[in-house]
């Protein structure tokens, strides 16, 4: 019983040591003025509670998440475009040069221009997240469609499926595991881009929270905000994976 517990806790050893080190540096090494730069763990716990009680943490998280979701829904347009590019050579020939020119520009480089276009606010933030989301989904969808087993398409054709039916009932589904991979990557990149966009162009959201806290030297709030960003990012990825397992049990079997 005790052994089992020890076994469970063993992988957390390094983590515990790091938190211990953090606590030591903060309380023993730093003096009262510099401690503001790295508050001890227990101060962070207090800050979490404060931010939860006032509802600030919830409000900022919801604002950030809703921007992520709106942008993601727009970015899903990469799926039909990617399918068209992967399926019809002519579409790819036309679209590819445009994509290849836009894709290497990091979403963050769009921030100044997008502020001029959309002003500071939701639309601008969503635009930046959209850019972060869109390309991973597109690239993976194109690769997914091109990687569809040719015999699956042939089987559909000889069983009487027309082109539209083949695309909808076979190509889309066969490419789905890779499209989901693109969605996972896209949501992750979008989430990172979101925080950056909110740092400069928002009056709410987790990115705003940490930047705002910085200006008043509330390092504890900054750290809580950073931790929340990490936790939410992880949660998004886990949720997508759980949905995948539920909806496409066969896809995991394929990747095994």
């Amino acid at each position: 019983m005790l052994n089992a517990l020890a076994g469970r806790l063993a992988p957390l050893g390094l983590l515990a040591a790091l938190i211990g080190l953090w606590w030591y540096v903060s309380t023993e090494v730093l003096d009262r003025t510099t401690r503001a730069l790295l508050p001890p763990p227990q101060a962070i716990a207090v800050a979490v509670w404060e931010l939860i009680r006032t509802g600030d943490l919830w409000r900022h998280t919801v604002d950030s998440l809703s921007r992520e979701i709106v942008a993601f829904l727009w970015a899903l347009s990469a799926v039909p475009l990617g399918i068209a590019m992967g399926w019809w050579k002519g579409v790819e020939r036309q679209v590819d040069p445009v994509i290849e020119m836009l894709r290497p520009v990091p979403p963050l480089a769009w921030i100044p221009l997008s502020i001029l276009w959309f002003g500071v606010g939701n639309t601008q933030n969503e635009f930046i997240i959209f850019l972060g989301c869109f390309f991973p989904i597109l690239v993976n969808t194109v690769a997914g469609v091109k990687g569809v087993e040719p015999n699956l398409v042939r089987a559909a054709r000889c069983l009487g499926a027309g082109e539209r039916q083949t695309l909808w009932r076979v190509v889309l589904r066969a490419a789905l595991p890779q499209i989901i991979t693109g969605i996972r990557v896209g949501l992750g990149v979008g989430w990172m881009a979101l925080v950056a966009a909110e740092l400069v162009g928002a009056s709410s959201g987790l990115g705003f929270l940490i930047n705002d806290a910085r200006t008043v030297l509330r390092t504890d709030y900054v750290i809580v905000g950073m931790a929340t960003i990490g936790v939410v990012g992880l949660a998004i990825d886990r949720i997508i994976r759980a949905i995948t397992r539920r909806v496409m049990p066969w896809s995991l079997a394929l990747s095994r």
Partner: protein
Amino acid sequence: MSGVTISGVSKVFPGHGSGDAPVVALEDVSFVIADRQFCSILGHSGCGKTTLLMLLAGFERPTRGEILMDGAAIGAPTWQRTVVFQDYALFPWLTVRQNIAFGLEMKQTPKADCQAIVARYVERVGLQGFEDRYPYQLSGGMKQRVSIARALAVDPSVLLMDEPFAALDAQNRARMQEEMGRLLASADPSLCKTMVLVTHSIEEAILLSDRVIVLTRRPGRVKAEIGIDLPRPRRETDARFAALKQHVRELIHDEYEPER
């Protein structure tokens, strides 16, 4: 009537790189498959036999010559000519039942009929109890049964099989061949179709076919046509079976010699 006439068919694939020589897969292949005949196309790997099947299905067009079915040139793929693939090509996101129903749905078969037909073919290939499994939950032999059921369910006039048993282990292969032989011997009218089997197994060809077409090494040409009129069900231990096998083996062996 669903006889197939292959006349003067050649297939040349362009080389991949710009400097690559084009590959001649088939050269001037002509033969006739009679209606409801079981015809095997036998040859070494790389002799173009799969290419020939792809042409018959309509996935590819001949470079020269033509393939006629019921007097009309073969066009785009249709459910009149379904294919059983060596790698099964089952839709991994569909269950056994849904895989078999796929072609019927494409034909817009009424739901009730569809269910009845699927149930019939599930029974015929012995997959009762596995209807709701996904392909990844099935063994190779079971997957190939699903694939055969799926190809037959749409009631095609020609069934094309591309080394359907080659990916199976020896025991499963023997069992599937035997079952196929029994199905053919049962004289079930719905199974009485024109069948084309591409294979490199001499035993398999003799066991199942009315006629065997032996192809040469690349480029594939017709080396010999052999009618098999042994009574069904056939047994490999039969003396006439053994004699035929020896005869075909010598034909094939001739083809193998220059390669050494």
